[in-house]
C-alpha cells in the first residue's frame, strides 16, 4: 500500500503517443496496403517523483516537455504506458476552467452543470451557490445565457465553481491567465488559503515569477525527463539556461 504521507506518486512512468494516429477509416485502410511509419513519441520517459500532502509544487518546462501529460495522468484522464501513478485524495483539475460550460445556458444552470462535472452533488451546490456567485462577481448576469458574458466573466465563473469544490489536490494549468489584475489577486489569496489548509497544489506554468513566489518546490522538465527537482530559488538559473 502507498505511504499515507504522499498525495501523488509517480513510479517509473512513461507515456507513449503515436504520431499520425489514424482518425479516418480511409487512412487506416491505406495504411494496411502502404504501411507508413507511425513513429512512437515518448512524452514522458521513465519519470519518478513523490509529492507530499500539503506541498505546493510547480512543474515548469518548455512546450512539449511533458508538463500537461503529467497533469492529465494525475487527473486520471490518461493512463501511463509503463509504470504506475498513485493519487491519494479528491482531485480538482483547474486545467480547463468551466469544463462543460454551455453558451446557451444561464450562469446559474452552468454552475450546476460544471459543479456536478467536478464531482459535487446538487445539494452541495445549493449550499455553496451564493458564495460561488459572489466570488465570481457576476451580479445580475447570473440569469443571462453565458454567450453574453465577457471572457473575464466566463473565467471568473469557472474559477469560482472550481475552488468551491473543496479539493484535496488542486491541479492548476496556467492559472495566471484568469481575469483582470484585481481578480488575480483574489485568486492568489484563495490559493494561499488552500496552502494554509494543507491542500496539495500542482501548478504547471511557463511563468517562473509566480512559481518562485508561490511554490515550495519546482520540478524542471525537458523532453520528458526531469532535469532538476528542488527549491525554486535554486532552480531559477537552471531554468533560464534551459529556455535559452
Amino acid at each position, binding site marked *: 500500500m502507498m505511504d499515507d504521507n504522499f498525495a501523488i506518486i509517480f513510479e517509473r512512468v512513461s507515456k507513449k503517443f503515436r504520431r499520425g*494516429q489514424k482518425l479516418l477509416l480511409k487512412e487506416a485502410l491505406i495504411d494496411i496496403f502502404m504501411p507508413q511509419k507511425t513513429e512512437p513519441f515518448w512524452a514522458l520517459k521513465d519519470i519518478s517523483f513523490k509529492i507530499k500532502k500539503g506541498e505546493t509544487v510547480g512543474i515548469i518546462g518548455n512546450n512539449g516537455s511533458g508538463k500537461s501529460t503529467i497533469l492529465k495522468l494525475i487527473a486520471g*484522464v490518461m493512463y501511463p504506458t509503463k509504470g504506475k501513478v498513485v493519487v491519494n485524495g479528491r482531485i480538482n483539475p483547474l486545467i480547463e476552467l468551466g*469544463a*462543460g460550460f454551455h453558451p446557451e*445556458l444561464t450562469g446559474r444552470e452552468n454552475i450546476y*452543470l460544471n459543479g456536478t462535472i467536478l464531482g459535487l452533488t446538487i445539494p452541495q451546490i445549493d449550499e455553496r451557490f451564493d458564495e460561488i456567485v459572489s466570488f465570481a462577481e457576476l451580479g445580475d448576469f447570473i440569469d443571462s445565457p453565458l454567450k453574453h458574458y465577457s471572457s473575464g466573466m466566463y473565467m471568473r465563473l469557472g474559477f469560482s465553481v472550481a475552488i468551491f469544490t473543496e479539493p484535496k489536490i488542486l491541479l492548476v494549468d496556467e492559472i495566471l491567465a484568469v481575469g483582470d489584475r484585481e481578480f488575480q489577486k483574489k485568486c492568489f489569496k484563495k490559493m494561499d488559503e488552500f496552502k494554509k489548509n494543507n491542500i496539495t497544489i500542482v501548478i504547471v506554468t511557463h511563468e517562473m515569477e509566480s512559481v518562485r513566489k508561490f511554490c515550495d518546490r519546482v520540478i524542471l522538465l525537458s523532453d520528458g525527463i526531469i532535469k532538476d527537482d528542488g527549491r525554486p530559488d535554486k532552480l531559477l538559473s537552471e531554468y533560464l539556461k534551459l529556455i535559452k
Partner: protein
Amino acid sequence: MNKIFPYLKYKDLFLQLTLREIKSKYKQSILGYAWVVLVPLLNLLVLNIVFSFVFRVKTGNIPYAIYLFVGLVPWTFTANAISAATSSLIANSTLITKVNFLREIIPFSAIAAKLVDFLLISIILVIFLVIYHIPPHLSLLFIPLIFIVQLGLVTGISLILSSINVFFRDVENILNVFLTVWMYLTPVLYPPEFIPSNVRFLFGLNPMTGIINSYRNVILYGVLPPWNSFAFSIVITLTTVLFGLWLFKRNEKSFADVI
C-alpha cells in the same frame, strides 16, 4: 454502496448532462421544444400519404396511419438515440481530456435526452389511439418489458459505436445511411407479412423486428408478443450490452490520447 453500484455516485452528473442536452437544443428556436413532437408528426403525415395513398399498403382492420404511428414512434427513438449517443463522446471531448468521471455517463445522458422526446411523442400516440378507437388491451402490460429490451439494445449499440467513433470518425458519417437502410429492413412502414416467406428468416435476424412487432401486437391487436422473434431480440440485446460494455471499458483508457 458506491462500490457496488458506481453509477449512483454519478446520478447528479447524469441528470445535469441530460438537462443540458434538452435545454440547449431548443433554446434558440421559436417553437422550442414543440419541435420534438412536430417533427415526428410531419414525418408521419408524409409517410402516411406516400404509403397509404400511393403504395396502398394494406394493414387489415387497423387503419394504416395508426399502424404506422405505433411502429414509427419506437423506431424514431432507436434511431435518434443511437445517432446522438454515437457522436456524444466527440462532442464532449473537452470533458474527456480534462475531468475524470465515469465515461459511460456521456452516451447514457445522450440516450436519456432522446428518451424524454420519446415519452412526449408517446403522449401524442395515446391521443391518436383514442381517436382511432383502439381499445386499451390487457396486453399493454407487456410494454415495460418490450421497452426495457429496446432500451438495452439501444444502449449496447451506442456503447459500441460511440467508443469506435472516437478512433474512426467515419462511424458518425456512415451511421445515417445505415439507420435509413435499417428502417427499411424493419417492418416499420409495412406489415411483416409483406416480406417474402423465403427471406423472412433473414429479416428475423434483425433484433428491431421482434421489438416493433411486439409493440404492435400488444397495442393494436391485444395479443402477446410474437415470442420467437421477441426472444431472439432479448438474446441479441443481452449480447450487445455485454459486448458494448466490454468494448467501451477496453477503449476508454485511450480516449484522452486520441480525441
